[in-house]
């Protein structure tokens, strides 16, 4: 029996592999469709490996070491490492300052760095090198005084597009840098927000399900012709079981070929991926390896799906020795099980959320719920199309031709657009979730950009450095005004507490214009002093004595710098500064508190800039440079998106575009195939004198009717799914019209498919189609 089965499967393979030009074209179409699907699935199966690889390299460059008094003693291999880094436009550039305690060749150096950079020497990633070449002085100015001496290798970067640098430095010590004894600390993992997990799960479900639908559609390319071939076999004695095995062999060959094509596309795709960089996401080719068991599932599942879909399709037709009889028109589609799928999906989504108390989410439950709901929406489509087209009457000839054709067999058209339905329903839900989560994830920074647009800060050795610092920024290109402020920390002249610490307070010195940005002040003149109680401590009182060099004094053995709160000091309240922070302690005007000789202070400049000029910020960052670990520029913005969210959004956009293009391609193939099958009928219509425009319009209607119904169903279902998901993450609907742009995209697809089909239609309309041999 097995030999018989194998022979029949082999006969199917023979049909698929040796059917001449048209046979090969059909097999190639199926293989190409399956191949594209397989390639996308293999890429998706590689995502965990990609993330692991990137994370492992990120961990490998993390320093093991501490700052300050607990730092390890210097040794021949120890390295001092300080955080540097900068931002250009919206791109974060990772930067580290390195300084060897001993011989540079012996010192611990980050992975991917062949030679330890000497002071002023720069080792850059390929992406940063390219940025420096393309962006010109606006970026290279920031690296003035440095020389590029090497390139960071792949083992030291998260991805090929990551901009990063290591800069050799001097003057680092354990007060401002880590003494690193080795690299490779396991980085602390930030668990994703449950809302983001839901978003990721839904996104993967939505993106992958159309791929499976696409594969299922692809294996039915050439289905009508295959059925006729099977009928011919029935005439010479093949029974029903034999024809099924022959059909299975045929599609098995095409799907196995599709696996090979998919593997090749995957191999080509992974080479191309390295050249792509979306925002800061970039991937090394070597990282794109499918998780072995996911890869195995794909390899096993695709032929199984192919055979199952084919056998299921054969159940809908009666293949007899005299020909093929479709049973779909005689047996009405049942709606109950389609609604049941939807109902179970909804029930699962309701059951698995919302749960405010839990910080984790049941990804499997949500995925199953989303998939069931999407399956239900897709399953409803053939029923809805059938019900709709049976009621269609009258209209112009093109409409009549289209609706009669659909009435004859609406299932095929519904299947073709099922991928669109899944994609649009999923995308509508995602878009709603996306819009709502974006609102949630948009972090309110508290910045007040009406009062300042940027803040520059620098650790200074003594108060006298404030003036030159502020002046430097005040005269920078695009800066309209700059307010300077000095901050420091003072010890109170009281006994040590039980833990051996001395209580302290912060102090801020600036003119009245600056103080008004930080505290409530009605009357202010140079020489005034204000005190603001902190939430956890009483206000300082007149007569309290402070050691302005207190914390520094302990470690640096510097002399105390005593200052007494004057009797005229007035108590007031703090207000959030332009940068959103609130300060407490002493607020003094320059004449009241002279800090010119006080060590270890922070100089802050609040900067007003010319509105609308993006380069101003870059000029300010250039002033700060990258060589000084103790100076930086912070650009103020009212809100910012979390980086996690921006990453997901980028991935969604790319995925959605790929899916829509794939579905459009499969629809073009299906339409062309339908046209080829109806060559004779089209020729007859032309012989009757039917105009080209009429037939073209009929093709348009044949696509438009099922797609239109599919889009309506997808919009309604997607919106319902979106509402459920939003309820799950506890967010409000912010965009009820999310379906509009996607529906417009769907309509665009109808036009695209029709236009792509017209050349074939015109060819088919030549009278020579009437020839039978």
């Amino acid at each position, binding site marked *: 029996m097995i030999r018989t089965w194998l022979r029949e499967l082999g006969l199917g393979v023979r049909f698929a592999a040796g059917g001449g030009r048209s046979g090969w074209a059909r097999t190639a179409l199926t293989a190409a469709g399956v191949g594209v699907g397989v390639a996308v699935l293999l890429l998706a199966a590689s995502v965990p490996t990609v993330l692991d690889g990137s994370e492992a390299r990120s961990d490998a460059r993390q320093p093991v070491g501490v700052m300050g008094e607990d730092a390890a003693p210097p040794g021949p291999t120890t390295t001092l490492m300080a955080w540097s880094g900068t931002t250009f436009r919206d791109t974060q550039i990772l930067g580290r300052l390195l300084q060897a305690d001993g011989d540079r060749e012996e010192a611990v150096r980050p992975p991917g760095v062949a030679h330890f950079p000497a002071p002023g020497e720069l080792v850059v990633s390929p992406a940063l090198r390219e940025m420096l070449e393309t962006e010109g002085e606006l970026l290279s100015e920031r690296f003035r005084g440095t020389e590029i001496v090497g390139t960071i290798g792949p083992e030291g970067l998260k991805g090929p597009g990551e901009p990063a640098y290591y800069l050799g430095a001097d003057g680092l010590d354990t007060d401002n840098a880590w003494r690193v004894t080795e690299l490779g600390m396991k980085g602390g993992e930030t668990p994703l927000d449950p809302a983001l997990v839901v978003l990721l799960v839904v996104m993967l479900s939505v993106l992958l399900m159309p791929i499976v639908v696409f594969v299922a559609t692809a294996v039915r390319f050439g289905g009508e012709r295959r059925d006729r071939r099977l009928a011919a076999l029935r*005439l010479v004695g093949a029974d029903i079981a034999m024809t099924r095995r022959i059909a299975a062999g045929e599609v098995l060959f095409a799907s196995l070929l599709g696996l090979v094509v998919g593997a090749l596309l995957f191999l080509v795709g992974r080479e191309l991926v390295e050249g792509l960089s979306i925002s800061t996401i970039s991937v090394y080719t070597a990282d794109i390896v499918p998780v072995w068991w996911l890869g195995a599932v794909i390899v096993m599942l695709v032929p199984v799906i192919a055979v199952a879909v084919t056998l299921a399709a054969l159940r809908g037709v009666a293949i007899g020795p005299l020909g093929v009889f479709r049973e779909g028109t005689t047996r009405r589609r049942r709606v109950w099980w389609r609604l049941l799928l939807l109902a179970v999906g909804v029930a699962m989504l309701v059951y698995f959320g919302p749960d405010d108390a839990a910080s984790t989410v049941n990804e499997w439950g949500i995925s199953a719920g989303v998939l069931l709901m999407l399956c239900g929406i897709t399953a409803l489509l053939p029923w809805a199309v059938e019900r709709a087209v049976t009621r269609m009457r009258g209209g112009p000839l093109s409409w009549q031709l289209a609706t009669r054709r659909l009435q004859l067999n609406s299932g095929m058209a519904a299947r073709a657009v099922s991928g669109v339905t899944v994609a649009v329903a999923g995308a509508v839900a995602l878009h709603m979730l996306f819009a709502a989560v974006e609102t949630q994830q948009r972090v309110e920074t508290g910045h007040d950009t009406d009062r300042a647009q940027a803040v520059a800060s620098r650790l200074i050795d003594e108060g006298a450095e404030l003036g030159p610092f502020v002046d430097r920024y005040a005269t920078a290109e695009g800066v309209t005004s700059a307010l300077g402020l000095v901050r420091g920390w003072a010890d109170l002249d009281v006994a040590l507490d039980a833990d051996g610490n001395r209580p302290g307070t912060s102090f801020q010195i600036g003119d009245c214009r600056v103080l008004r940005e930080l505290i409530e002040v009605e009357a202010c003149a140079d020489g005034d002093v204000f005190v603001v109680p902190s939430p956890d401590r009483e206000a300082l009182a007149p007569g309290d004595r402070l050691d302005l060099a207190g914390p520094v004094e302990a470690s640096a053995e510097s002399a105390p710098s005593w200052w007494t709160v004057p009797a005229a000091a007035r108590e007031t309240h703090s207000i959030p500064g332009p940068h959103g922070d609130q300060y407490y302690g002493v607020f003094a005007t320059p004449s009241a508190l002279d800090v010119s000789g006080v060590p270890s202070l922070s100089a802050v400049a609040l900067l007003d800039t010319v509105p609308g000029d993006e380069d101003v910020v870059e000029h300010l960052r250039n002033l700060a440079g990258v060589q000084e670990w103790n100076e930086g520029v912070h650009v103020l913005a009212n809100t910012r998106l979390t980086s996690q969210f921006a990453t997901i959004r980028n991935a969604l956009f790319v995925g959605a575009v790929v899916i829509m293009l794939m579905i459009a391609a499969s629809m073009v193939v299906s339409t062309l195939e339908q046209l080829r099958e109806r060559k004779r009928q089209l020729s007859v219509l032309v012989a009757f004198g039917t105009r080209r425009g009429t037939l073209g319009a009929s093709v348009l209607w044949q696509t438009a009717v099922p797609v239109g119904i599919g889009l309506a169903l997808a919009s309604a279902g997607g919106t319902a799914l979106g509402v459920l998901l939003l309820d799950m993450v506890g967010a409000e609907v912010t965009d009820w019209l999310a379906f509009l742009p996607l529906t417009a995209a769907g309509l665009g697809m109808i036009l695209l498919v029709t236009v792509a089909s017209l050349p074939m239609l015109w060819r088919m309309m030549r009278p020579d189609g009437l020839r039978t*041999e």
Partner: protein
Amino acid sequence: MTGEQSGGPLLAARGVHKVYGSTPALAGADFALHAGEVVAVMGPSGSGKSTLLHCLAGIVTPERGTVHYRGRELSALSDAERSALRRGEFGFVFQFGQLVPELTCTENVALPLRLAGADRKSAERQAREWLERLEVDDVRHHRPGQISGGQGQRVAIARALVATPRVVFADEPTGALDSLNGERVMELLTAAARDTRAAVVLVTHESRVAAYSDREVVVRDGRATDLSGLAGAA
């Protein structure tokens, strides 16, 4: 004991009724076929002659009446059993060859043998012999789309006879051919059938084609009349 063994007809139909929708195609047709004879079934368009052929071959099941092949009631057989009959005992030639377009002519002719379990080499060797006999050996590597209608019918005849069937059903086998080609095809079909002692049920509306038969049956309004007075012998 089969009808054949008892000297009775190989294939016999009695009181066969068949209705398509509300249109009666056969209304109590009787028919008998003996081993090795060639019977022409004639009649105007829509008379039910093709339906009679389909009922006799077990392709279509009648609503009423019986069809016996070698004593076995066809409607009592399962689909697999009827398929096995078509594979081993029956052969078919239709107006359009019903050839599988993906296969070469040799592979098409070898198909019934391969479906019956023969290995490829022996099946194709036999197919080649039949193609030579029917004078179309030169197109053995061609696919159906690459040969003429007459050649296609000869390949179809070869396929119908390759498994040495007991009955060949031919439905308007020359319907798509010119008279010259039609006559040659009929000569080859009847000669080959007689050589292998296969009986032939030949549906046609052309008297010149019917002339190749041993006797003629006319179907009119769903009933069959044996012009030689032998009808109802079963």
